[in-house]
């Protein structure tokens, strides 16, 4: 187990800089997830921690030791790859035992550790099979088994669930979380799926364009996104974001014709500013109480049973609502919208920064 500290890490490929000075501290035993859209630098950062990519600038410190120049094999980290990267010519047992064999562990020790890992992951019946004889989920488990037999200082996961079907992904999500709770090994996990990030992480690092946008607990990111990007990225379905102007009297008007009175709770710094107003679909209610948002016409009704996603047109604006009242809606129905005053998010239009 270990703590890791990344200080002003830069990464360039020739002239192209892909990480622009990233700093992050990860505590011992923590489960941290790097999340962001494709090309945001999350996998690059993970590979820099692993030692598979050189560090152009800054430093990475593992337990007070700067590891910038250490080759991967000397870092005592285990990694689960997106493609699993199992050795196709080795059986499951040999795949899992490989690192121990290289470390010159005794046969007894290897057998004991492989059995233990196989037991944790339910791999005993598969130990003599080759990777080609396994399903996607089983391969994923073997890749995890290969990582845990070593009892490394750090687990690194690079989008390990992206090749699995939706049902298996949900199952493996909870298995990985359970595994972490059991082993308490410091874990850095990369995904582009914000649901994965929200459900598994102790802390989430939201990355965008080679920068860190925000670091926080899942609920912290959900409740109080620092930037418009985080607001739109975290949460599913994503937040309604409406560009407009908050005049000096606290009335919000958008180009689409919305006009809402927010003077009682809008932050003082937002008055007289061009702003982007955010409100989550699950925080808008039909025929409820609170701040009046006017009337809207239902365009599309998508019921999932426990909740119903509504696409509406309010004036000329498109809004999404997640209704959990289990009421039945019809297309073209006219409804009145309301929201709680605590559920509004105000962002500066120019910078995208939160106003509070």
């Amino acid at each position, binding site marked *: 187990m270990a703590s890791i500290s990344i200080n002003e890490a830069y990464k360039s490929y020739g002239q192209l800089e892909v990480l622009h000075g990233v700093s992050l501290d990860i505590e011992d035993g923590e489960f941290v997830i790097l999340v962001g859209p494709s090309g945001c630098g999350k996998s690059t950062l993970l590979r820099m921690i*692993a030692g598979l990519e050189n560090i152009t600038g800054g430093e990475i410190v593992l337990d007070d030791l700067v590891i910038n120049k250490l080759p991967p094999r000397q870092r005592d980290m*285990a990694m689960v*790859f997106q493609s699993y*990267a199992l*050795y196709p010519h080795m059986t499951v047992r040999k795949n899992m035992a490989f*690192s121990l064999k*290289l470390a010159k562990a005794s046969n007894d020790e290897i057998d004991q550790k492989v059995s233990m890992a196989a037991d944790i992951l339910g791999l005993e019946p598969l130990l003599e099979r*080759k990777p080609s004889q396994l399903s996607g989920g089983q391969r994923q488990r073997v890749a995890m088994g*290969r990582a845990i037999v070593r009892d490394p200082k750090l687990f690194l996961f690079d989008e390990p669930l992206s090749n699995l079907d939706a049902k298996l992904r949900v199952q493996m999500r909870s298995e990985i979380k359970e595994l972490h709770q059991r082993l308490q090994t410091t874990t850095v996990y990369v995904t582009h799926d914000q649901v994965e990030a929200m459900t598994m992480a102790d802390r989430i690092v939201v990355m965008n364009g080679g920068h860190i946008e925000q670091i926080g607990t899942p609920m912290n990111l959900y409740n109080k996104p620092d930037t418009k990007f985080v607001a739109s990225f975290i949460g599913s379905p994503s937040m309604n974001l409406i560009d407009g102007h908050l005049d000096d009297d606290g009335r919000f008007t958008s180009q689409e014709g919305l006009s809402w009175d927010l003077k009682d709770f809008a932050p003082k710094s937002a008055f007289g500013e061009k702003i982007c107003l955010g409100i989550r679909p699950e925080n808008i209610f039909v025929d409820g109480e609170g701040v009046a948002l006017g009337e809207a016409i239902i365009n599309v009704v998508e019921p999932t049973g426990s909740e119903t996603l509504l696409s509406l047109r309010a004036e000329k604006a498109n809004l999404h609502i997640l209704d959990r009242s289990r009421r039945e809606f019809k297309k073209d129905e006219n409804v009145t919208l309301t929201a709680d005053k605590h559920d509004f998010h105000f962002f500066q239009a120019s910078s995208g920064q939160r106003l509070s």
Partner: protein
Amino acid sequence: MSEKNLFCYLMVAPALFLTLILGVYPMIDTMIISFQDYDLLTLQSGGVNWVGIDNYSKILADERFVQTIWQTVWMTVLAILFSVSAGLLLAQIINVNFKGRGILRTVVLSPWFVPPVTASAIWIWLLNTNASPINQVLMDWGLIDSNIRFLADSTTWGPFNIPMLSVVAVRSWNGLPIIIIFLLAGLQSIPKSLYEAADMDGAGMFQKFYHVTLPMLRPVLMILLALLFLGGFGHFEMNYVMTGGGPRNLTNVLAVWTYQEGFQFLRYGKAAAASGIILLMTITISIFYLWVESKDNRK
């Protein structure tokens, strides 16, 4: 027969016809001759008679022929050993992205552009005892006192001698490019993530080569070795052009022996029997290869 099947047979027919006429028929005919007393010098007077395995018994009783079989095996094994080892190393180097890779690749693949007979002629000059630039260089560096007789020294160490090693070296050099191309294709099909996984697992450079590269190259290596052994046992031109089997039969191989027996001494029966021995050796290699392949597929 359905129309589709007929079309398939029609398409295959020309190639099949040529193979039958130019490959299968001569092979069967040669095998028939190998059991006949077929000697051009006595053909007029004695005719052609069936002699059973007489030709085989006679050539196998000939010490020089048995020596030739062993030399064929040794030269093939050595050439394969040298060229595959060098090929593995060079393919690895060429596979890495570095400045000047294109130049190195061209240099390494250049022997491919030289036909074996031309290459042999060039090397005869390079290895000529009195005019050899190689001897000159070694002499200038003070590594040797007298000229090495690359193609004429008949001193032997067990089954080995300098002319044999010289011919093996040239055969390896000429065969290297195709080996490199095979291995490069194999190397490029190995996912990079396997090396990264091995990095994370704690493997060093040699361990990655032994535990990842070699097993992943196994299918390519198997077919390559099968082809090299098949080609090696039947190899003719370089041995024939460079030494003609000499000195004192020390570099002779089965194909050259067969040619000499058939077209110099006109003893077709014995030459055909020698071909039968080559065929037996190549069949053994083919069966071994198919057995290993099927074993791999069953796993």
